[in-house]
């Protein structure tokens, strides 16, 4: 079989062609398993043998050939009740062990790979879902902030236009005997009902709040907001919206309970007539 140490090329080629008897094939395989040079020679021989398939005219087989072939393979498998792999492969192992079929090993590998992929996908899905919720919450927060900014901008624009409007009146408020040193200024636009004011007032006792009143030409005073908690402030300016087109004759500030009242009940501290 061999020429001293290595297997002759023609033997390797015969083996690659499947033309060696089983006993010689087994001896060759045992040698090749431990000889890199002969293994390389065998690989070349196999490559050459593979080319033989292209050495004849290629003809399309009848449609039934594949079905018949697969039927025979199935029948053989069922008869032997084992997975298909060449008998020579099992017999070829020098240590006598039967090689496990690649398909079975590959199947197990694929199963584990699929399980790992499924776990990975589940983790990614969970992560993405969590990230999605976080982004959605952040988006809602940003949207709310944007809406708030838009609202503020509209309010400021309204106030600015009110201050600049030719029909806006300025009312100087003077302190009464209850707060002689107090003072204040009111900007009022009857058409839009916007009231803007600032005041210099003494500190209040606990539980009390200053409340601005529009005193109309006819009827009861109308609340124009609080100068403290519950009121709407822009820095040192306070603002309020009263009904539109009310003819005012004066503005006054009184001391009321925290939160204010519908009608004035406490002492006046500021008063100014239009």
């Amino acid at each position: 079989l061999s020429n001293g140490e290595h297997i002759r090329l023609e033997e390797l080629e015969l083996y690659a062609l499947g033309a060696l008897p089983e006993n010689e094939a087994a001896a060759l395989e045992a040698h090749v398993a431990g000889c890199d040079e002969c293994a390389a020679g065998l690989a070349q021989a196999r490559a050459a043998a593979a080319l033989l398939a292209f050495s004849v005219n290629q003809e399309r087989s009848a449609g039934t050939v594949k079905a018949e072939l697969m039927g025979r393979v199935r029948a053989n498998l069922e008869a032997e009740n084992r997975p298909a792999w060449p008998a020579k492969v099992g017999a070829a192992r020098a240590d006598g062990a039967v090689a496990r079929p690649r398909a079975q090993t590959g199947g197990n590998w694929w199963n584990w790979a699929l399980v790992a992929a499924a776990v990975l996908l589940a983790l990614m899905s969970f992560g993405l879902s969590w990230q999605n919720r976080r982004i959605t919450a952040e988006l809602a927060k940003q949207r709310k902030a944007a809406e708030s900014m838009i609202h503020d901008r509209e309010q400021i624009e309204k106030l600015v236009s009110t201050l600049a409007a030719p029909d806006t009146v300025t009312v100087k408020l003077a302190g009464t005997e209850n707060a002689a040193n107090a003072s204040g200024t009111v900007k009022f636009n009857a058409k839009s009902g916007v009231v803007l004011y600032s005041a210099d007032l003494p500190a209040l006792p606990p539980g009390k709040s200053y409340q601005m009143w529009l005193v109309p030409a006819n009827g009861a005073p109308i609340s124009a907001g609080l100068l403290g908690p519950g009121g709407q402030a822009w820095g040192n300016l306070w603002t309020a919206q009263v009904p539109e087109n009310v003819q005012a004759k004066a503005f006054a500030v009184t001391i009321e309970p925290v939160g204010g009242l519908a009608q004035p009940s406490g002492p006046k501290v500021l008063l100014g007539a239009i």
Partner: protein
Amino acid sequence: VMGSLPEGQRQALECAYFEGMSHSEIAEKTGQPLGTVKTRIRSAMEVLKKVLS
């Protein structure tokens, strides 16, 4: 390509590759010594490798 091989080489290769016969079976079928069969297959493979690769 197979058709271009000398008759003996072609026959030996066909028996080995396409009919799955061992070299001794080929020798028996063709009536040629075993060494001749091996040589013919070796030569045929060389020719095919040159032509096909």
